[in-house]
């Protein structure tokens, strides 16, 4: 056992049990997995990613590149950051971590917080800054990644100051201290993302601060020499932390290798803990560790040589080598906020260059390395080995990248550290190269004969530490991934076995299978009911925009390609909208409800975009128009009663209403009431059949639907879903914006010149005269009938003019909608086809995987061309 008899901040009153690689061990509350393993003399923790070399604990914190472990679903944790708990089971990582295939059972939440001052780092500098800020009454948040606040002060004789300061902070009502919380990203206007670890999950804090205090300290960096990766070789400050904070001796016989004064404190504390310090190798004294020896337990000896003199080397047996090459201020959050760094020759590290507005860097992060005891330092990076072999001088331990790899990168002619990073993968591991990055720069600088500052460092990017997808998702997973919108009639659809499809955020019935019907059989049955009897569809998801004001009609005239000034109150009209480039944007029916009162429907998916579009023109170009817009999509339920017998259903529901074709013609609106339900009736059709859309406030939606089903039952009424809706409308050649159109299609391309007014101005009008939009050989909307009516053209299939043309084959169009069967008894499709209206009657071909489907080009209407059924 390497547990010291006394000392440390562990709770020695009761040991707790854990296992590592299946072997049971004991340790104390307050240990990390790393300190617990060291206390149990477990030196080999993991095998490295590429070369499967033995690796042990290298650091005591977030910068750990070696001691990677697997705990539960987490496949790549740093043992230095895993807090020990009773029953913990850990496995050392062998090579690379693998993602768990199990769902993350963790519980994650998101928290939004605002404060005047966010202090990142709860060490001496951070606590001092928080004390200052709290004097003013500002809201202060302090986040620290460890289980205890205090940073390097923990176990270092600062207990009284720490306790007093924390008590002062905790007594302030507007100071919040968050432990186990790592600030990992610093974004625009001081949004800082913080990952808080909690039992069985965590919290993602999104902190918006007026001012950010970066008190993130500094990471010690190693010196590089041959075989510098053996278990037992660790950062000098880490060895001191294990002794002082955890009461663990990380070895029995130690050698210290350094280029600065900080190791004086290390040597003193190791000796006090009873560890024999066999030697202090100081490059400032002209000596260096040139190689190490070891076995399957890690380090056994170091070889020491002179930097300048002859080749006399001496070997020292030891099991602990404490290395310090100086300190790198932790400036990730400063750099992420676009702070620039400069190399400080005297400190041998990068420090903040100019100050950033509202970002204060304090303490070791600002280059104040007095607390770490750096004192004088001789910049030194790599100890040459024997001959030309650099393949065991590890620069990035997690990525297994050596000095040889860097030299190879330089040999290819690369000079930028960014290129060398990508070529070698230095700094791209889960530790983000915290102990490797600056050494990479220094090696490059040395090799190129340039100053370190001129070479610079690679850009720091979020996240500072690995963050799990579970934390990012929070509760937005499963049913809460995205809002689900359902109509008032939804419970009925569920109860009657509807199969649903997602349309934007809406759940819409796709089809209503009976027994074990497949979709094709259900759609045939539903189509038959709509064409021959009566059927009903829930159309409530249509976008609806209420438009009011004395200038509403002028506004509509400008927005739509067709005119509305002749439309009487109590009537509706189909309308088409273009963007300024003349391309079709959306369509829908516009209803004239009363003086200065209109209502426009939009496509289900386009509702929000159309409202934004209308508001844009109203507010930015036509602020003089007196018009107000309101989204009323969710206010109304829309029950579409469709088919030649739909009139009988409506007549039964509204016995007082004159409903014959003359009294209530196509595109007319009536008001009515049935069973106490107020209903607005519209003779609108999206199927080509005689049809009525019954609108009622959403509260009555389900009741109205049930009333329709009840009176329709003797007539054989059945519900239908979106698939049948699509088939019916396609048979009539009615377009769907976003299916036939894709932002490159004009009304003229669709054969809808009839809806483009020549008498008034509208958005996009001028674009229809551009040479490209006016040319005759654009793609036109056409119908396609596969020569073999059993064959289905896939939507999106490309069309060519020859069945077996030599490559390159010219694409002349594509299929936009395609259905196996509906009313026609055969497959059919709609397509956008180059010069399509000139190709009617000709044959085009869709080359598919291994076969070609031939199809005859037709007009884009397959059913009831003279609209006799619609107007009946």
């Amino acid at each position, binding site marked *: 056992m390497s547990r010291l008899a006394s000392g440390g901040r562990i709770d020695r009153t009761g040991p707790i049990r854990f296992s590592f690689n299946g072997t049971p061990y004991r340790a104390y509350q307050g240990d990390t997995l790393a300190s617990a393993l060291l206390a149990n003399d477990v030196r080999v923790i993991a095998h490295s990613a590429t070369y499967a070399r033995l690796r042990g604990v290298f650091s005591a914190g977030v910068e750990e590149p070696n001691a990677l472990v697997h705990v539960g679903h987490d496949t790549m944790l740093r043992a230095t950051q895993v807090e020990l708990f009773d029953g913990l089971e850990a496995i050392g990582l062998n090579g690379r971590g693998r993602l768990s295939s199990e769902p993350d059972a963790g519980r994650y939440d998101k928290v939004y917080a605002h404060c005047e001052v966010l202090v990142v780092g709860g060490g001496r500098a951070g606590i001092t800054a928080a004390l200052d800020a709290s004097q003013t009454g500002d809201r202060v948040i302090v986040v620290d990644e460890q289980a205890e606040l205090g940073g390097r002060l923990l176990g270092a004789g600062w207990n009284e100051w720490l306790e007093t300061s924390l008590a002062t902070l905790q007594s302030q009502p507007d100071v919040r201290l968050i432990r186990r919380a790592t600030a990992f990203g610093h*974004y*625009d*206007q001081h*949004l800082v993302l913080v990952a808080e670890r909690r039992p069985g999950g965590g919290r993602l804090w999104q902190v*918006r601060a007026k001012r950010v205090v970066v008190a993130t300290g500094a990471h010690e960096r190693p010196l590089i020499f041959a075989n510098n990766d053996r278990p037992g070789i660790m950062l000098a400050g880490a060895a001191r932390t294990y002794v002082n904070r955890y009461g663990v001796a990380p070895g029995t016989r130690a050698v210290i290798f350094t280029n600065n004064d900080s190791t004086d404190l290390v040597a003193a504390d190791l000796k006090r803990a009873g560890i024999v310090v066999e030697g202090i190798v100081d490059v400032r004294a002209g000596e260096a560790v040139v190689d190490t020896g070891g076995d399957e337990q890690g380090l056994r000896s170091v070889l020491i040589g002179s930097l300048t003199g002859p080749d006399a080397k001496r070997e020292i047996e030891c099991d602990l080598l404490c290395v310090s090459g100086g300190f790198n201020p932790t400036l990730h959050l400063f750099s992420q906020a*676009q702070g620039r760094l400069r190399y400080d020759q005297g400190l041998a590290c990068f420090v903040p260059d100019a100050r950033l507005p509202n970002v204060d860097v304090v303490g070791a992060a600002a280059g104040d390395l007095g607390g770490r005891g750096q004192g004088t330092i001789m910049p030194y990076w790599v100890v040459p080995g024997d001959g030309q072999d650099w393949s065991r001088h590890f620069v990035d331990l997690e990525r297994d990248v050596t000095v040889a790899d860097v030299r190879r990168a330089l040999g290819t002619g690369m000079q930028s550290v960014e290129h060398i990073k990508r070529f070698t993968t230095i700094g791209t591991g889960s530790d983000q190269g915290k102990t490797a990055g600056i050494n990479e720069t220094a090696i490059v600088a040395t090799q190129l004969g340039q100053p370190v500052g001129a070479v610079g460092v690679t850009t720091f990017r979020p996240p500072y530490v690995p963050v799990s997808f579970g934390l990012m998702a929070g509760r937005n997973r499963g049913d809460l991934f995205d809002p689900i919108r359902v109509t008032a009639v939804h419970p009925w659809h569920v109860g009657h076995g509807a199969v649903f499809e997602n349309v934007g955020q809406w759940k819409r019935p796709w089809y209503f299978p009976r027994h074990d019907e497949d979709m094709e059989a259900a759609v045939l049955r539903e189509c038959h009911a709509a064409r021959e009897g009566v059927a009903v569809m829930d159309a409530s998801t249509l976008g609806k925009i209420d438009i009011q004001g004395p200038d509403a009609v002028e506004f509509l005239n400008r927005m739509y390609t067709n005119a509305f000034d002749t439309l009487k109150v109590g009537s509706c009209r189909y309308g088409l909208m273009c963007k*300024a*480039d003349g391309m079709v944007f959306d369509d829908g029916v516009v209803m004239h409800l009363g003086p200065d009162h209109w209502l426009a429907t939009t496509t289900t998916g386009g509702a*929000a975009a159309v*409202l*934004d579009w209308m*508001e*844009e023109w109203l*507010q*930015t*170009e036509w602020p003089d128009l007196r018009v107000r817009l309101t989204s009323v999509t969710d206010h109304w339920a829309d029950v579409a009663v469709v088919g030649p017998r739909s009139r009988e259903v409506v007549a039964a529901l509204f016995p007082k209403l004159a409903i014959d074709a003359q009294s209530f013609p196509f595109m007319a609106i009536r008001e009515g009431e049935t069973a106490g339900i107020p209903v607005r009736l519209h003779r609108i059709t999206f199927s080509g059949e005689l049809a009525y859309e019954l609108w009622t406030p959403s509260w009555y939606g389900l009741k109205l639907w049930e009333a329709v089903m009840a009176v329709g039952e003797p007539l054989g009424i059945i519900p239908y879903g979106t698939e049948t809706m699509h088939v019916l409308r396609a048979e009539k050649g009615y377009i769907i914006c976003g299916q036939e159109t894709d932002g490159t299609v004009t009304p003229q391309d669709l054969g809808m010149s009839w809806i483009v007014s020549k008498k008034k*101005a509208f958005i996009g*009008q*001028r*674009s229809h005269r*551009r*040479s490209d939009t006016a040319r005759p050989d654009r793609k036109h909307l056409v119908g396609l009938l596969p020569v073999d009516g059993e064959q289905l053209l896939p939507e999106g299939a490309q069309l060519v003019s020859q069945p077996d043309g030599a490559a390159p084959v010219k694409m002349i169009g594509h299929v936009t909608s395609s259905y196996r069967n509906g009313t026609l008894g055969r497959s059919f499709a709609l397509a956008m086809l180059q010069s399509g209206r000139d190709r009617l009657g000709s044959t085009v071909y869709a080359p598919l995987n291994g076969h070609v489907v031939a199809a005859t080009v037709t007009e884009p209407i397959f059913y009831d061309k003279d609209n006799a059924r619609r107007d009946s």
Partner: protein
Amino acid sequence: MLIPCPWCGDREDIEFKYGGAAQVAYPTDPQSADDAHWARYVFFRPNPKGTMAERWVHTAGCRRWFNVVRDTVTHTIRPA
């Protein structure tokens, strides 16, 4: 990014939709505009490195359109 809505104050950018460059005037009489003039209105927009006048709409808030000047490098925003 925080965007200063003139009506609601500073709000997170997810509440807004981007409206592209500001100060692109709609031709007073599109029908008499020649192709080059019209194309410039429809297709051409500035894309500077530095300050840019641009439009935003507070879609998930007050739904008002407004202009700001944003530095495309630093994302500092000031009201236009």
